[in-house]
């Protein structure tokens, strides 16, 4: 079981992910729908893993990743974003995100990615 933070501006996706994570036995410690809130929630909860959307209002995912990595270099961040954003994915990875999943993502794929970053360490 891991403690997870979900960051996405889509209510639907957050709900889907929350259900999937909880079904898999993880605990969703918080959700955030924008970059600024993501950093705040991360600092507050220090989750084991964090899924991160990139294109969001108020401080996008990229900024959130840099800020999170700054105070937690061991953060395990998985980027979830749509196809067509490849350069942004590479940016995110260059900032220290560990893995990525392409939207529309099967929940299975996201779960695998989370398990991957949790076990690979």
């Amino acid at each position: 079981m891991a403690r997870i933070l979900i960051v996405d501006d889509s209510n639907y996706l957050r709900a889907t992910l929350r259900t999937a994570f909880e079904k898999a036995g993880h605990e969703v410690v918080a959700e955030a729908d924008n970059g600024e809130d993501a950093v705040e929630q991360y600092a507050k909860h220090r989750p084991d893993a964090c899924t991160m959307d990139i294109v969001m209002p108020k401080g996008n995912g990229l900024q959130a990743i840099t800020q999170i990595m700054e105070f937690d270099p061991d953060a395990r961040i998985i980027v979830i974003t749509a196809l067509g954003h490849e350069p942004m994915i590479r940016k995110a990875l260059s900032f220290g995100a560990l893995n990525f999943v392409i939207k529309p993502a099967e929940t299975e794929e996201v779960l695998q990615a989370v398990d991957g970053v949790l076990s690979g360490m």
Partner: protein
Amino acid sequence: MSGNTINWDPWLDDIERSLEMMGPAIEVLKTNSSDMKSIEDMKVVLHSVKGLMDSVGLKTSTQTVFQIEENVHQEMDSLSGETISQLEKVFARLSDLVKTIQKNKPSADGILDLDKSSGFEAILVTFGKEYHIEIEVKAEKSLRSARALSILNSIKRFSVIKESTPAEEDLYLDANFDFLILEVTSRDHLEDIQKRISTLPSVGNVLVEEVAAKEEVTDTIEGLDQSITIRVPLINIRAVENGLATLSTHVEALKSEVISTKGIEELVGIERAFERIQGDLRKMRKVPLDSITSSLPVMVKRLSKEVGKDAELLVQGRFVTLDRALANYLVDPITQIIRNSISHGIEPMKDRRKARKPPVGRLIINASLERDKIRIKVSDDGKGIDKEALLAKAKELGINKGKNVSDQEVFNLIFERGISTATADGLSGRGVGMFGAKERLSQIGGSITVESTPEKGTTFIIEFSDPDALSKNLIFNINKGTYAIPSSEVEEIIIIKPKELVFQSNTKAEYYYKNKLLPVTVMKNLMGNDTDIRKDKDSKILLVCRGKTSLIGILVDNLLDERLVNIRPLNPLLQSYELFNGTLTGREREVILVINPASIK
């Protein structure tokens, strides 16, 4: 804990006291690396320094000191030059750290920066080993760079990446590549690194090899020495090796004659020097697998294009080293297998697409060391061996297999003379076929087997023993002479009375063993005696061995010993005696002939 101040004064007092002890101890160790008092002092100092650093949150520094403390404990009564130089570095950094703290008296907030800038991390990294890593990145082209970055980030969590091809910056911009090639430093074991990387997403084949520590080139003469190669006939190296073996026999014998402690110490020193020279010589006559495979990827590309296909070759385990003489025997068989795979295994592109396989065929050479054996697997992801065609070809050659023939028996037909030589494309027909490959390998006591799955591919497995590996050997008497047999060839040792045997002649008999009649050879008589042992009341030793095709028994007089030794090839003068295939050195440094059970008829 922001704004917290640390009471530095008592901390500095303690650290300074430790430094006062550490400095002189290092100086002593530099001249005498086994000075017990200094080593003990060092252990105490490191332990308290570690605790002090931990107490103020200097994380990396604590870890560094912890690691070096471990090393000191492991090396016990004599520290290595490396450890001593690490200690010196720690001492220097520690002195700097004290000065910085005395000047700034940083608050708890500044600790992290202090830890980072203390220079301890740089020392920590040097504890790691260098690895060369090749990773096949399996992802669509548009996402491959991103996948590679993801892999890099994960690897960074347990190692320091010193070089990456493509470079990380190029990956940010999107690079064109299939393999990610890295030079890293890590404190993890090779197997752990391999495992960790293999489980990362989008990772295909992974090769991890340790990079041998390179001596730093300090002056130009040494640099020159490293760049010049001289050719020496292999036989000269072997001659030196034999000379050394003789010398060490004399040293061993001297050990029981010398009484003074000093004398024995000197002898041990000589022995160690011998071992080092022997190791260096061994390295000289060994070549990495690379030396015979480096030209193959290009050959695979060229040959596959010639027959209108496309294939690539991946070589794994290139760090496995082979005796130069053995390596020569592998070139032809491996080339033959590759020709065979391209010609029969790999499908034309359109067939591969239909079968939902990647359009480019994949051949993999994988070498590994397994105890005393070297194993080289050559596999393809083609369509597998065509059983019908093979059976038909065999029939043409007059080899008839019955109806209930197993798949494996059919696959084994590929090694029959004349089977795999001629094909429509003429590619694999250029060599001597798989029969030739098998013959060639048998000259070095090697074997070749095949495994194949329809639509999945075929794997040829070459195995031969590593002549430098140590092996266990049973030592026994026959007619008062001493002989040996590799323990791996012996299935069971049975003590019997001669009357339990059914004799056909003075040399041949049979023994009822596990519900079967085991052919037994009376070694005594095979080796020149002609005694009738039927009347012999003494117990004898029956060694149940793996013969050429099935189990055989060899009857010897008595067992003496089992020794873990290196078997040397037979002196050329003795090579006409089929019964023996090597020699080893006994406890009294006498030369013992090693019997090859496969030669007993």
